[in-house]
Structure formats: C-alpha cells, structure tokens
C-alpha cells in the first residue's frame, strides 16, 4: 500500500472508514452467529451436557430417521404452502391495491394507504388474538357474519380443523402483511414518469392498457424483489403460528412450519428438553432452503430482468 501513490492510498482508507461500522456490526451480529450456528450443527450433546464433534450425524438423523424426517418434511411442505399462498394472494392483491392507489383521480388515497398498512404495524400477538376471537366458534363474530350469507350452521372451527388451519393462518398473515408489497410497488409506480403514461393515453391507450404495457414492465424489478422478500420472510416465519397455535402447531402438526419446528427442537417444549445442537441443524437446514431459493432467483430471474433508464 505504501508503494501506491499518495492519492490512491488516501482514497482507499476513506472507503474503508465509511464501510467499517456497517461491516463490523453486520459481521458481529449476522455473519459470526450464522457461521457459529452452522459449526454448532456438526456437534452433538450427551445427556451430561458434553459436546463433541459428530460430523454429519445430526443431518443424517434429521434427513433419514423416520420420525425426524416426517416432522421435517411436514414442516417444509406446510411452509411451502404458506409461501405459495402469500406469493399468489398477498402479492397480487398488494399490486392491485398499489395500482388503484396510484390512479390519478382517486380521492382519499392517503387514508386508504394508511388504513391498509395499519395491520402491518400491529404486533403479531395482537393480530393472532383478534383473529382467534373473530373466528372462535363459541363467541366469535364469524357465526353472525356467515349467517348473513345463509350459512345457518355457523362457521366451522377454521383454526381447529386439520384441513383448514394452515390456510386460515396463511390468510391472516396475508391480511396483516399485504401493506408491504403494496407500499413497495406503490413507491415504484410513483417513480414511473407521468409523461410516459400521458403519451400513451394521447396515443389512444386507456388506464388499463397503460398499466399492463407501460407501468408493469417498468416496475417488474420491484415485483421480483418483493417476491424474494416474501420467500425469505415466509421461510423464516414463526411468530403468528406460535401466537395462535403454540409451539406444537396443532392440530396434528398441520400448521407446523420450519420456524416452529426449530423452536421446539432448540428450546424444547413443556417436558421436552431442548437440544442446542439439533436446533442448530434445523436452523442450518432452514438457511440452506432459503439460500437455494434466493440463488435460484439470482441466477434464473434476476439476470433476465430488463431495467429501463427512466
């Protein structure tokens, strides 16, 4: 470095100084724990609390042992359903709302925006509690509401039936978080210059075609980003399921996702003792799943996206 000229050396130090705080904090609180978690997944614990290196044993146990694999594949499958519902319900609705909000002559757009974004800011525990009350087959308002549309038997126990619990929880989560894709796509839509839309309208397009042909292609990179954020957030999800169904994610593990499975394994539950090393293995597998998904996105989708200079 001393061999370089004065100017270049000064320039480099200056970059380093600016990068240092972020790099330091990120390394300390994200990268080190991540690497340590992965390292820990290669260790085993005996009943006396002694840890020793066991190689791939934990992974082999989870992926080949009949019961562990049943649990794990069930959690993975449920998580996938959870994600698909978000991807194909939450994000399109978010996009639709954003498109409506950015219509030029919409009145009270700001109020709508705030109201729709409101649930996102509420605590998951509150959301879980409110929806549990609404859907309660005993005292919930749901019975009366479905009565209006002619369902006299009342609402089935949506959160209690094996066939509906996961889907119901996914929709609660969609309801809560629809504000995020809406905000992100809304911001992107605002960036689309009015001239372009105006020019299209002058050329004979209506709002509908202007949206599909002009706005949508321009905000596609944002939608891709929203999708990948949805993916990461869903495969890390835990709180709503825990708040509504507890760590045993009933009925019969129908609402168990990776996050709740990790919690049970790592911290234990009721009389079940936790295992830090097996928990680390589940966490590493979660990381791997997310990594694969993000890589797929980066190499298959991101590269083909066309960006336009506006």
């Amino acid at each position, binding site marked *: 470095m001393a061999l370089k000229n004065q100017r270049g050396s000064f320039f480099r130090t200056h970059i380093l100084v600016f990068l240092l705080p972020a790099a330091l904090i990120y390394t300390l609180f994200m990268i080190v724990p991540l690497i340590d978690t992965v390292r820990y997944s290669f260790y085993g614990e005996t*009943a006396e609390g002694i840890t020793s290196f066991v190689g791939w044993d934990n992974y082999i146990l989870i992926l080949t042992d009949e*019961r562990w694999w049943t649990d794990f594949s069930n959690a993975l499958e449920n998580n996938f359903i959870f994600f698909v519902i978000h991807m194909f319900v939450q994000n399109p609705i978010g996009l639709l709302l954003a498109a409506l909000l950015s219509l030029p002559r919409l009145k009270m757009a700001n109020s709508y925006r705030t109201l729709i974004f409101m649930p996102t800011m509420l605590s998951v525990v509150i959301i879980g509690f409110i929806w*549990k009350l609404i*859907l*309660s*087959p*005993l*005292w919930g308002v749901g019975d009366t509401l479905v009565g209006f549309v002619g369902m006299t038997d*009342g*609402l*089935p*126990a*949506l*959160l*209690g*039936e*094996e066939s509906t619990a996961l889907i119901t929880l996914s929709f609660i989560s969609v309801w809560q978080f629809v504000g995020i894709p809406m905000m992100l796509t809304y911001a992107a839509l605002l960036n689309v210059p009015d001239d372009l839309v105006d020019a299209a309208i002058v050329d004979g397009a209506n709002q509908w075609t202007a949206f599909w042909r002009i706005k949508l292609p321009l905000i596609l990179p944002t939608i891709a980003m929203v999708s990948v954020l949805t993916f990461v957030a869903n495969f890390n999800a835990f709180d709503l399921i825990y708040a509504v169904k*507890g760590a*045993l994610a*009933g*009925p*019969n*593990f129908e609402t168990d996702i990776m996050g709740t499975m990790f919690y049970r*394994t790592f911290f234990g*539950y*009721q*009389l*079940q*003792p936790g*295992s830090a090393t*097996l928990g680390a293995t589940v966490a590493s597998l979660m990381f791997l799943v997310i990594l694969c998904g993000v890589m797929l996105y980066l190499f298959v989708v991101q590269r083909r996206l066309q960006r336009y200079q506006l």
Partner: protein
Amino acid sequence: MKKNNLTLGTSVAAIALAAASLTPTVSAFADELVIESWRTDDLDIWESQIIPAFNKSHPDIKVRFAPSPPTEYNANMNAKLTAGTAGDLITCKPFDASLDLYNNGHLTKVDDLPGMENFSGVAKSAWQTDDGSTTFCLPMASVIHGFIYNKEAFKELGLEIPKTIPEFMAALEKIKEDGTYIPMSMGTADQWEAATMGFQNVGPNFWAGEKGRKGLIDGTEKLTDPQYVKVYKHLAEWGPYLGKGYKGQSYPDSQNLFSLGRAAIYPAGSWDISTFNGQADFEFGAFPPPVPAGQDTCYISDHTDIGLGINAASKNVKAAETFLSWMASAEAGSIFSNALPGFYALSKHELTISDPVAQEFVSWRGKCESSIRNSYQILSRGTPNLENDLWNTSVGVINGSMTAEEAAKKAQDGLASWYKPQQ
C-alpha cells in the same frame, strides 16, 4: 487517551458498585430463613397464614417468602444457586428440573428428616433419584383430576352421578338429547387439555394407576397394550358430546362455557375450583373419573406439583430442617390446603377442607388408589417426547382423525425410538 481510559474504568467500577448495592442481599440475617418460590400468587397466604402459624410454635426462627416470576424460575434458581446467593429453602418443581439441582449438589438429602414418614412413595416419587433411593424435596402439594358438574343441570335432567363408564356415557347422551346444555365442556385447540384433562384424568382407571405407570417405565407394559388402547377408545367416544366447534375451543373457552352455566360436565383439574368459585353463580359438585364396568377399584391422578428442599449451601440448615419438618405436620398441611383450594398437602394425614368441592376431590384419596401422570417421570426425557405425543394423539382420537390403535402405535413408536426398556 490514558486519562480517558481511567475515567471509563472508574465509571464502570462505579456502575458495578451501584448495581451490586441494588441487588437484594438475600441472606441478610444469619437467623432468617428465606424461601425461594415461583408461586408469586401465594405471597399473601404465606405471609398472613403459614408463617405466623409456624412462628407460634417456633418464635425464634424468622421466615421470609421471596417468590420470583414463574417463567424465569428455573433459570433464576440455577444462577442463584451457582452464585451462592439463593435462599435457604428452595421450592421444587417436580421431576427433572429438581433432579438436576440435586445432581449438581445444590439440594440436600431429606430422607432422614423427621416427618418424612408421613409421605407415601407416590408423593415422594417426583423428588427422588431414578432408583427411588434418595428423596431431596419434601412433597408439598398436588393437584387431583376428576369431573366437575353443574348440580342444577343434573337435578333438572334427573341425572345421577355416574359411577361407571357406561353410566357416564348414558348421562352424556341424555344431556345431549335434552339439548339445554352442552354435555361436556372441553376443547382440543390447546392440545394439553385433551391429554391432561382427558387421557391422564380417566386413564389411571384403565392402566391400574401406579402399576401401569411403573410398568411403562420398566418396560413390562407398552402403550399398544389393550389397557392403553381402551383409554384412547374411550376418549374417542367423547367427541360427539363436546360443544359445537370444540376443535377451535381453547382452555379459557372451556372454563367460561362451564362457569356461564352452558355446559353440564367439565373434565377438571382441582386447580379449577378457585376459578369456578369466583365465576359460577350456580352450585357445582365433583365426581371421580368413572371406572370401566365391573371394576371395583378406582384410581385417581393425584399429581405431585410443588415440593420444598433445602439449599445445600445454606448457613441455616438446622433451622431449615425444623421448618421442613413442621411443613410435614398435619397442621401445616391443613392450613396450606385450606388457603389454596385445589392444591392439596401430600402427607398421609386426614385433611379436612372447608371448601366442599375441594373436600370432595381430596376425599377420593381415601376411596381410590393415587397415581401421578404417567409421562412425567423419566419417560419425557427424550425426543420425540412422550408428553407431547400424548397431547397430539389424544387430540387425534377426540377429533376423529386417528383411530385408537393408530394413536397408541404412534405414542409407543415414539417412546421406543429412544427409551431402552421399551425397545
């Protein structure tokens, strides 16, 4: 730079000092006994009833009850005991948490303590080493399972208290036919209700209490044996008699349904009594879990819940032993059980409790054989955990998504996968 370091150092020291002086010094007086507990609710009862009663006969020993929040109790206790700042008497959680404390040398043996002869083997089992040779906490309280029923509803429908399972099912059917009341208030949403109020409540009658529980531990009985499958079969019969939407009904929902007078029968733990005393405006009673037809002996789940042990590092071991012996007496047991209806002293003394329902529960100790929940000792140490599996399978059979045989097989396979005597 140097100067800066110095100031930093001093201020750190000052903060540390301040923090140290703020920390409550637990054993301030050498002659004061401090009781550690997670039962923050009981502070008043200890201060106004139990400790004054003790001081009547032992005016020279000062006692202070110092509870800490229940959720942090285990971690808190471990830290305090390791650091040597814990009180003289330690309230013991049942089974493994306290066993760990004993194995780490934090609790003393209490086998030779005068008063220990007042406790049965079942009562002591929660605070013993696996081989049963050493006891390290004095059994203090248990909770009993049974059924609480709405007396007015029973009178209205002309129902008798069911003694056998066929009578029980007939009563449920009659309540259902009448339609005024929900036959039984229980939900499967929280899962533990199905296992604790269902499986562990009626089960001991099928598996002969302690005989079955010990049989599972030493491997002579399996969960796929007929007596366990029958428990699941019986639970499966409950489904149609639970309220509409019971699959989404949580524990507080079940309590409310009963205390609002909408349900006739409530599968209970004795701790529910005080809730119902406060909320229900009708008269309610209790009956023990009905026995299978033709069976004479009845068994109840008299589950050990709270114990009291001596901190091995205490400076007042003698005084602590005196207190513990007094806690084993009939007098202490009676004060404790009356102050907390639904929690029962575990000594063999005859208990008289003024609350009629609480008295009804404890009277079964004389008529039936006592046992504890079968998944709590040793059998829940591994993964998959038997207790969790019982929750899952009990819900499964009640909801009708599993047959009794499937449920039994699932629980057994899980246990056998890690527990040697079952392999």
